[in-house]
């Protein structure tokens, strides 16, 4: 009886893990099979044609690239500096705890709420309009918690002896942080940043009212131009327009590009983490 209960229980746990793995593979394989049929060099490098029924997705790829770069330029320094303060400078325990609660709370805010904030502040109040700048700032606030947490972990993992050695040869605290702590923590910070980019590249709701447009013939010229973006392109192809028999295949193609992009970003981050764990000599 006890034995049977155990067998059933452990089986249920295996079923759970299988469910997760199969769900992921089902999405990956289904979208890859359908998507690779329409994927070719032209699809990647051409602009959309004939009211989104033909042509490629080049402007959407470029748009997502610009948005991701902008997001990182904004969020990375803020995130790393916050983490440095939290780990190396903040002495008051209550203060660090309060800041950490804020970080967790910000991480839990729904993505569409960031979109509302971006619309009211960056698009309207600061008058940046619907643009790469507004979108990148909105996404940057959204991924800030990801970068802070990853950087904190990375900085915390730097051995105390490294710092003590640096102080012992007469370096100041700031010199120790910039010359010893930061370089040592860099792989961890990069991993966190890569994960943040993956998140930013795949998000739709925050850029819906702040950065994207359905169709654009020319590539953006400045950070105040609106852009096409891969995730929004999928949504728009599925919900707007009338020629769904032509639009759905393009959506498959776009989905495989986006999924491929985000999955390789995640995969690289996981690899760096595993390698970092193995390579550490201290």
């Amino acid at each position, binding site marked *: 009886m006890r034995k049977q209960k155990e067998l059933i229980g452990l089986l249920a746990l295996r079923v759970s893990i299988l469910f997760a793995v199969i769900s992921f593979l089902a999405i990956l394989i289904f979208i890859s099979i359908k998507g690779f049929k329409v994927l070719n060099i032209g699809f990647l490098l051409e602009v959309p044609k004939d009211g989104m029924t033909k042509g490629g997705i080049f402007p959407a790829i470029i748009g997502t690239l610009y948005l991701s770069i902008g997001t990182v330029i904004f969020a990375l320094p803020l995130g790393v500096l916050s983490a440095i303060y939290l780990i190396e400078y903040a002495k008051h325990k209550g203060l660090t705890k309060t800041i950490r609660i804020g970080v967790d709370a910000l991480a839990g805010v729904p993505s569409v709420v960031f979109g509302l904030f971006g619309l*009211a502040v960056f698009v309207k109040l600061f008058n940046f309009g619907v643009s790469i700048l507004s979108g990148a700032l909105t996404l940057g606030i959204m991924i800030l918690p990801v970068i802070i947490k990853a950087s904190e972990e990375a900085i915390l993992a730097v051995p105390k002896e490294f710092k003590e050695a640096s102080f012992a040869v007469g370096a100041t605290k700031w010199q120790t942080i910039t010359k010893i702590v930061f370089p040592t923590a860099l792989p961890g910070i990069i991993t966190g940043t890569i994960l943040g980019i993956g998140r930013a590249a795949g998000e739709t709701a925050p850029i819906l009212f702040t950065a994207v447009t359905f169709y654009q013939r020319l590539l953006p010229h400045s950070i105040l131009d609106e852009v096409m973006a891969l995730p929004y392109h999928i949504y728009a192809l599925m919900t707007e327009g009338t020629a769904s028999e032509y639009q759905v295949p393009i959506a498959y193609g776009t989905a495989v590009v986006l999924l491929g992009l985000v999955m390789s970003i995640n995969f690289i981050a996981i690899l760096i983490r595993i390698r970092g764990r193995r390579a550490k000599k201290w």
Partner: protein
Amino acid sequence: MKKNFIERLLPIFALLTWVFLFGIMLILFIEGTPIFKSVPIFRFIFGRHWYPVHEPPEFGILPLICGSLMVTVGALIIAIPFGLGCAIYLSEIANRAVREVVKPFIEMLAGVPSVVYGFFGMVLLAPMIQKIFHLSIGLTAFTASVILGVMALPTVASIAEDAISSVPKALREASFALGANQWETITRVVVPAAKSGIFAAIILGIGRAIGETMTVLMIAGCCAVITPNFFKPVRPMTATIAAEMGEAPMGSMHYHALFAIGLVLFLITIGLSLIAERFKER
């Protein structure tokens, strides 16, 4: 010790997350509350009709709240058992090699962009559900629940795994020494010991499901109606904001009403984050 310019600025960077949190709340408040001048707050929240473009318009968000609750509850029915199953499996059963292979799958599942989940739901799951249950339309609360459940699974799994794997080894050994088998040890010793962390995981899973936008926008269907039937279309709060903000004229009642929904969402998710924080502390 003398501090340089950047060192002096560090606390400001660290406090930025709170600045953003307050900024978001302030903006939602400023842009959202004007609706309460024309629609009393009680009627806004408990009104049964959401007809924003009718003449005269009606702004009752009860159907939207019900829509959000339905898909969230549905998602939890999948995410809690499977997520906890994955967490227990990874922490208690899998050996190192298996864990290093399986865990990235769960992380990748978390990394799939929500628009790709929505797309997958639209092209594959919705038609399947329509056929199996003989429905007139496959975009239903049930469809959205299934996909949201898979999306919330990694959140529940990763936080619960942290909690479960931090249960001291001595507790397990004591349990085995008393003659308990592995299943009894898991259900009567390990899980109860990790209880508060598991609650935190579930609460953050709720937050993930209730705040998700693109998936429900694409597959929950169209209609802001109150229905107990999971095989009917519903319209959650997030989807309403994302779908209607583009058409709401700036400064109109509709515009303010959408920000007020954002405020409701924000307060719910912040509340959930703070509750999770309390559980994590224990």
